[in-house]
């Protein structure tokens, strides 16, 4: 019970800090009430209802990231990690930001009614789905707090750092094996000493909050990340002007991806956090493309900056946001620039046919030989994604007009760039070996899967809405 209170309080602080940050950034759009959707029906109510869930979802991820930034600052300043050194300044900052957000909101906005009303049968479906999602998260919570650190890389390259940093109260250096011998005991080593620190720092904070090392309970943030992702998905869809039921369907689909669930139950890998931060970075960018608010832009930037601190490929994931930003900033020249970029990338692939560079450990020699069987198994036959990729292809084919114009264009561009990144890695490099044995392929696809899920829901909402309006006008 005490454990639950300590751990809960520790992460509640991080969550509240993030909510305060997002709330402090948000007032401009709340004030204007600009709908992200082209629809006007229920726009105010939808935007308001969506904002609360977006605030909760994006708030956790923002807070969890800022927490680790603060821990890095403490370590750099030679201040030992402790509840006081970490929590006290963050609690003060949270309070100040909440007051700031409250004052601005009170001055500039008026309370609005929550949500568009649903009919009784639809409301019953909404509650049934909510209960279904809640039951899943209850099961995942039991798993994450019970199972000691289990999956391979979690104890080879992530929690190794957490254990040492927790015991020493700061970020002691991890180096490769060669440097380790030369360091004569002043540096540590593990399977991947150069991997980023954010995820191990989450585990360190869990243990500091608990007051002891516990390699099951320290993984609570993985569960919180999944919950936050579902909240954010709900918020984005609702904020787009969709009904509460459509938003709940979006949250359900995002929270029910089996491989994402496994990464909660068997927590310790950085792939689920990578997926969550990338999804939030893309969605915040997309919201900015519609609202042009400084708040959304700042949030998108924060999440994009977080990506490389989660996993090394996070740098590339963050760069996949660039085409969407270009098209948003330069509505006329942007598409042409993106087109030129695609041409340059294609040319680069051809050049790589002649040279043999190695980047991020991947041999980038053009050797087009995708492992089609492995890819088909992963995307369409195994139980990793339910029907996600069938739906993605069907939507892209049927709704291609909608996805290639605003407001969906920036998000579609981000997804297209992200999928192109995966395609190049797994079709042209030695990473294809991991397709055949179904290892890294699925974890790499996990990085983009939640975003694809939300994109499908948004696209369907937009497409159905457009046809409904057209049908009504024709009638």
């Amino acid at each position, binding site marked *: 019970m005490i454990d639950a209170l300590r751990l809960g309080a520790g992460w509640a602080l991080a969550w509240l800090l993030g909510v305060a940050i997002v709330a402090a950034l948000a007032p401009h759009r709340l004030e204007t009430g600009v709908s992200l959707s082209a629809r006007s029906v229920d726009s105010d109510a939808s935007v308001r209802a969506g904002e609360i869930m977006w605030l909760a979802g994006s708030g956790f991820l923002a807070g969890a990231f800022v927490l680790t930034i603060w821990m890095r600052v403490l370590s750099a300043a030679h201040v030992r990690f402790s509840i006081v050194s970490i929590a006290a300044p963050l609690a003060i900052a949270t309070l100040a930001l909440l007051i700031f957000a409250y004052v601005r909101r009170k001055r500039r906005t008026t309370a609005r009614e929550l949500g568009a009303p649903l009919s009784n049968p639809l409301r019953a479906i909404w509650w049934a789905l909510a209960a279904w999602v809640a039951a899943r998260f209850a099961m995942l919570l039991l798993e994450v707090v019970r*199972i000691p650190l289990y999956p391979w890389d979690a104890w080879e390259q992530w929690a190794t750092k957490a254990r040492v940093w927790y015991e020493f109260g700061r970020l002691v250096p991890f180096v490769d094996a060669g440097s380790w011998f030369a360091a004569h005991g002043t540096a540590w080593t593990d399977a991947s000493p150069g991997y980023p620190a954010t995820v191990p720092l989450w585990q360190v904070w869990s243990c500091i909050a608990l007051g002891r090392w516990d390699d099951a309970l320290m993984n609570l943030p993985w569960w919180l990340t999944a919950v936050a992702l579902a909240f954010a998905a709900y918020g984005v869809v609702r904020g787009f002007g969709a009904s509460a039921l459509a938003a709940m369907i979006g949250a359900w689909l995002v929270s029910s991806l089996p491989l994402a669930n496994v*990464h909660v139950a*068997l927590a310790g890998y950085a792939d689920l956090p990578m997926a969550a931060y990338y999804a939030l970075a893309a969605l915040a960018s997309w919201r900015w493309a519609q609202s042009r608010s400084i708040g959304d832009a700042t949030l998108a930037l924060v999440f994009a900056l977080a990506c490389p601190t989660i996993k090394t490929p996070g740098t590339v994931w963050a760069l996949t946001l660039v085409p969407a930003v270009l098209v948003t900033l330069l509505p006329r020249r942007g598409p042409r620039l993106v087109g030129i970029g695609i041409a340059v990338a294609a040319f680069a692939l051809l050049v790589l046919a002649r040279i043999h560079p190695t980047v991020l450990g991947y041999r980038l020699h053009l050797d087009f030989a995708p492992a089609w069987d492995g890819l088909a198994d992963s995307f369409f036959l195994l139980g990793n994604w339910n029907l996600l990729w069938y739906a993605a292809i069907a939507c892209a084919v049927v709704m291609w007009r909608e996805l290639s114009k605003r407001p969906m264009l920036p998000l579609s561009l981000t997804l297209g760039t992200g999928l192109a990144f995966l395609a190049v890695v797994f079709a042209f490099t030695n990473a294809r070996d991991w397709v055949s044995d179904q290892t890294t392929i699925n974890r790499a696809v996990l990085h983009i899967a939640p975003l694809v899920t939300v994109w499908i829901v948004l696209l369907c909402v937009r497409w159905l809405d457009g046809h409904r309006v057209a049908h009504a006008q024709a009638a």
Partner: protein
Amino acid sequence: MAHSDLAPRSLTIWIAALAVTVLAYVAVAKAGPWYSPAPEVRIASSALQIARGKGALIGDVLVVERTADDGNAVVSATTNLVARDYARVAWRLHGLAPGTSAFLLWNTDVEPDRVNRLPLAAQGGALLPADVAADPHWLGQVRGIALILHGEIERPVEILGADAGSGDAFATIASRVREWVAYARWNGSSINTVSDGDEAVLLPLPLLLFAALVVASAAIAAIVWWRGRGESIAPAARIASIAPSVALLFLASWLVLDARWAVALARHVHDDGIRFAGKSPAAKHLALEDGALFAFVEKARTILPPIAADASDPPGHPGPRGAPAARVFVVSDSNYVRGRAAYLLYPWNVWTDRAQNVLPPANDLRAGDWIVVYQRHGVAYDAAAHHLRWDGGKVISADLRLLDHGGALFELR
């Protein structure tokens, strides 16, 4: 267009489409007749014998550890099958390495001196069933069947038993359903892949549901076209009119897959509750498969010099008052053990070669270093002379500080 009544009826159409799809599949996939009264024969692992190679019956599983010198392992069972009633034979096993080939052997009373052989296809570490009805030597009374594994067995192959079935429509459907709802505890590959139920699935459930969705969508489109055949309606409007129904069916299909996954998750929660609930962190580790390793490392941790981190230490010099923390080298024949033991030994300053089974370079060792040896061949210790030597290399002075659970802890002099 009067399509507003389609959405509620679409679920009925979908169920019908699912039935049609399943029937079409069974018509193609069944190995025997549509109906056969012959009961399925299930051979338990306890009824199997290892005729060649090395292995043992552990609980309900026959574990094959090694092949014989000729590179083969053979597992056999005595049977009394009427060949014409049984069209399909399946070996239930997992853990088969990609390079290992497998064959089904059988012997009949019609050709008592002949041992028949059929190659078996593998999928994801398991074997696919063999359709034997078409084989000209599947005759008379089948007196025995066997499984031959050829090639290097990298990890133990776990055989749960063998089944012989009629391969009729009901058996085919029952087999698929059994595959879809198969359950396996969390294992090393769980983090990489969510298998579609069993390791070897002949018809993945997502594919079946998608096929049924396509059939149902086509049926709905046909209904819409039929009802509006006298009207001039744009194709886009027709697509839009069936879209809500198709979306509903898509969600229903997703729900089926999600329900299956939720049941599997609930079983994991149940199993892990029995295994871990209410236990201390140490007790949880002892309940894992590598509990013996954890127990050894826990003892070693009480012997290793204590680490007292001090806030006054400069960065890069953790340990008591700037003294470097003890360096601990971990060696083992097992890649898993090296990495896992290293993790359990942190925050001591651990080194292990995760990729290769090698010991640290003797020249890089110094007095005050520690070596953990766990299930590693080629390490010799002379207790009288306090000499430690590995792989016939340089001799190093060391004290044995712990010998327990197949592991040893040495402190270098």
